[in-house]
């Protein structure tokens, strides 16, 4: 998936993830901790697109998360966190795939399931930790490190769980070729 359709897909995924994250998931919250669907969709996108796109998507999605209604923290915190997540996950995934033996396929291959899980958990750890760290630096929510660590660990655990479903879903959407274009090419 290239160009505009990729952008549209990314936009749709991020907005949907945001809506689900603030409406549906609070009903499934565990101690108030909700899985970061937006973060996981950035991870998914990073696995199948190039690092540049993943970085920019992370920045944009984070910015949206920063200003969307329930948010009250300093804008830019999620943007920074998701930007780093997008960049790091995309870099590592691409380096991993480049190191794979055999000929490089033309299009991005479907990453192995285990890689998706690891990327989801790792991305969640990097993202939530960064977000918490910037909060500590800015003293945005004035909470102690202990309480912060507890929430971050719970969030990472929950994210890793949800990543098993969310990341493959996002990967599947990004690897789909839009049908009309295919028809056009065949004609």
């Amino acid at each position, binding site marked *: 998936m290239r160009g505009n359709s990729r952008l549209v897909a990314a936009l749709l995924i991020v907005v949907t993830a945001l*809506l689900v994250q603030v*409406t*549906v998931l609070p009903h499934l919250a565990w101690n108030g901790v909700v899985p970061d669907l937006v973060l996981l969709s950035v991870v998914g996108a990073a696995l199948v*697109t190039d690092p540049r796109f993943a*970085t920019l998507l992370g920045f944009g999605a984070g910015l949206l998360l920063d200003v969307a209604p329930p948010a009250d923290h*300093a*804008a*830019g915190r999620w*943007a920074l966190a998701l930007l780093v997540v997008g960049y790091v996950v995309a870099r590592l995934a691409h380096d991993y795939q480049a190191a794979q033996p055999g000929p490089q396929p033309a299009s991005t291959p479907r990453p192995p399931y285990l890689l998706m899980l690891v990327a989801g958990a790792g991305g969640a750890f990097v993202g939530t930790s960064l977000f918490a760290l910037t909060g500590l630096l800015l003293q945005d929510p004035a909470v102690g490190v202990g309480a912060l660590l507890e929430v971050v660990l719970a969030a990472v655990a929950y994210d890793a769980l949800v990543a098993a479903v969310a990341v493959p879903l996002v990967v599947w959407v990004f690897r789909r070729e839009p049908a009309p274009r295919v028809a056009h090419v065949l004609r």
Partner: protein
Amino acid sequence: MSLDTRPPRQTPVRHVATPRERDEQRGLPTRSLLLALVLACITLMVVDRTSGEDSPVEPVRRVVGEVLGPAEAGVNAVLGPVLGLPEMLRTNDALREEIAAQDDEIAELRREAHQNPYDVARAEDLRALCAMATNTGYLLAPARFSGYSSAQSFSSTISIDAGADAGIRPDMTVVNGDGLVGRVLEVTSHTSTVLLIVDADSTVGGKLGESLESGFVDGRGGLADGDPLDLRLVDNTVLPEQGQQVVTWGSEGTGPYVAGIPIGEVSKVYEDIRAGTYRAVLEPYVDFTSLGDLAVVVPTGEDTRVIEPEACS
């Protein structure tokens, strides 16, 4: 524009890409882009954090909120029935159990609600007894009505749930908050039998409250029919007046009837023209069909649970 007539090269010149070109080929963001994004984030954070209420991010927040707010509300509205779904997926057993639990609760509440007026009435009775003790200055042993004798026995007696253990002896006076009830006939250790003043065998010495004329109050037997008490005055020529109060005359000690307990008031006066005498009918103060808390007048010095005068003034 010139035509290139050279034959195509069999092997293209090996092109060594610069690191930057290689990065772009692999889709890596350039360093400057990364730096710009990170700096943008940091700037945003600092600006938003330090400028507080009037930060430049506020308008953006508002606009995004205007767009996403209704979307979130819409998703929530759609979500409502879905979240309500588990409510519907319940077994009949669970529903039955719930109904049973709620029935129990309803029964409990209903019982409480029904008990409430009873408790209020009882408290009223006890307050009246207290007042009676204060007004008459007697020690009262509290007791509760426990049963009427049947009509077939042709006597108007009741039983109460206090007996010899509470210091009650035969021939003691029984009152309630309104006035005279009767006297004790027999006692067991925990119950007593009381002869009501409306019994046909009962005669109580009474006197008119105002004129202090003495007389006898006779029961006429029976509870329900009207005119249960007659007053015969010793002095035949005195004309009792309607509404005059009759109190007990009183005998020594505590029995059979202590002095000064209100019995009732004159409701009708009949004149026997031939004999030149008067017969008065009394309306008792006590409602004999709804007896509840009673008390027995006990002598001073009984070491039992009693209501003392001024106990609840």
